[in-house]
């Protein structure tokens, strides 16, 4: 085993088909590169994030592909090479943390250190418990300590083994923001010295902003974009990501004019006469763009509203109302059909019904441009 970990790069090219009885088969087909530092793996649940981590850790065998950490090949389907999980030196903090319930915090942390002599082991465990500020609970079992302490113990248990890659599967879910920030700071401080690639799975925007140096966005088993957080996530640049992030309305539009000083442009929706104002994008007059709008970002009014800051007010007609749980899905025709989410209370108060005339109110910045 080499002690040299600084500068290691993790690369993974993975193809893995998952068949489960009754459900549609799922295909993970990705190629990623993870340099030292924190890389966020972002995507909705079911996007394949955990399967990807399981493949990298060696818990799941990919159908095809190649996984390397630095100069070591961990998996290569061509050479039928599959290094088993215990031999990979890849640490993995699971979403459920998977602390051993029958062992104390200290025993949990020492679990991966059995090759060390007793004395060295105790020293290393003591050091990392101090670094993660959980020295005081070392004799307690996971069931007896707080959620934040459990998360710190799980991190310590993984990091104490001096891994060459660290995989984190939503390790901080359920913690309040301050505690989260504190743990992230500890993690950053630890990695400043080690410089290993950390692949951090989350679907929380807060965590992306707090942690992210790089983001890889995953959807339906594919990488849909990768880069700095602002580029990947702020405006949905790809159709796939827009859908994954929950945009119910995806509309074709033609750019009519650009108002650069205002940072907006006017577009015409589809073949209709309906014109709206959207944020300025990289587009020329006459080109076609796609506009994504969340159904929950749209307001409906039964009279023409006045004195609003919203720039887009369009007249239309309700096509249908459909109650889904505590939410009503309205389809409204404005020349193009919009899906709008309203509450049952709003439907009663406004006496919304099919064929009713309504006005749609839409803020410019609720319209997102899609590549």
């Amino acid at each position, binding site marked *: 085993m080499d002690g040299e970990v600084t500068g290691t790069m993790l690369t993974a090219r993975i193809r893995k088909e998952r068949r489960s009885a009754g459900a549609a088969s799922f295909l993970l087909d990705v190629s990623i590169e993870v340099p030292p530092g924190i890389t966020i793996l972002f995507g909705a649940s079911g996007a394949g994030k955990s399967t990807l981590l399981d493949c990298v*850790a060696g818990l799941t065998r990919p159908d095809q592909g190649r996984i390397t950490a630095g100069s070591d090949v961990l998996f290569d389907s061509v050479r039928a090479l599959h290094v088993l999980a215990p031999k990979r030196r890849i640490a993995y903090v699971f979403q459920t943390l*998977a602390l051993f319930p029958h062992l104390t915090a200290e025993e949990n942390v020492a679990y991966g250190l*059995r090759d060390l002599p007793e004395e060295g082991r105790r020293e290393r465990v003591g050091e990392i418990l101090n670094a993660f500020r959980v020295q005081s609970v070392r004799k307690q079992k996971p069931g007896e300590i707080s*959620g934040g302490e459990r998360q710190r113990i799980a991190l310590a248990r993984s990091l104490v083994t001096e891994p060459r890659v660290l995989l984190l599967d939503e390790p901080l879910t359920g913690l309040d923001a301050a505690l989260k920030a504190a743990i992230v700071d500890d993690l950053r401080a630890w990695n400043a010295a080690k410089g290993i690639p950390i692949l951090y799975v989350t679907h929380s925007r807060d965590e992306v902003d707090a942690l992210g140096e790089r983001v890889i966005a995953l959807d339906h088993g594919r990488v849909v974009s990768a880069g700095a957080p602002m580029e990947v996530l702020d405006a949905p640049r790809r159709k796939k990501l827009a859908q994954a992030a929950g945009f119910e309305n995806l509309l074709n539009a033609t750019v009519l004019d650009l108002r650069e000083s205002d940072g907006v442009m006017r577009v015409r929706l589809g073949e209709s006469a309906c014109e709206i104002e959207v944020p300025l994008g990289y587009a020329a007059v006459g080109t076609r763009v796609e506009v994504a709008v969340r159904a929950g970002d749209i307001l409906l009014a039964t009279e023409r509203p006045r004195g609003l800051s919203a720039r887009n007010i369009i007249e239309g007609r309700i096509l249908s109302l459909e109650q889904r749980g505590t939410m009503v899905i309205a389809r409204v025709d404005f020349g193009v059909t919009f899906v709008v989410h309203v509450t049952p209370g709003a439907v009663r108060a406004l006496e919304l019904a099919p064929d009713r005339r309504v006005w749609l109110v839409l803020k410019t910045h609720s319209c997102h441009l899609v590549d």
Partner: protein
Amino acid sequence: MEALWLSLKLAACVAAILLAIGMPVAYWLAYSSWRGKFLLESVVALPLVLPPTVLGFYALVAMGPRGPLGKFWIALFGHGLAFTFGGLILASVLYSFPFAVQPLVASFEGVDRRLLDASAVLGAGTLRTFWRIILPLSLPGVVTAAVLSFAHTLGEFGVVLMVGGNLAGVTRTVSIDIYDHVQSLEYGAANRMALVLLVISFVVLSVVYAVNRRVWTPWTAK
């Protein structure tokens, strides 16, 4: 009392052997993803539905001097297996097999898979994961398996009668002894032995239920 001592000795031997054999079998049943697994599951459960006489009959045939097992045994030790204490142990192991394996499978399956994954990424191989994680977390299942196979062996009758016959000090267990006493109209003696068996069975089952009452499910964060 000789019969009681014999029964207890038999039950203890059978329980020990069953734990040793049952654990690898249960491990395989709990974690294998082989499609034909149901076949082995059915074989393991067979003694639950077969009349003891059927099981005893086949065991006797196999152990007899012309059966495959009997021939093997004679070649090895110079005497047959039927109507001996060894034969009794073998037949009882078969008969009580599901009582050991099924609680083990259930408790192995109850261990959170992610704990096994965690153990693996921390560098532990299959054997270390079994000893350090699976076994301690399955302790109630192991106790249940041991106690149930002990108790079940203690109470068996048909198989013992078929394979062991009724040789005092060799194969005459408590249940056979009671049957003997009743046949000879010695109700007093039968009653004493029956009562002893009843009390032991009750104590043993109480232990099983008390152990399972303990809340020791694997803890997971949620």
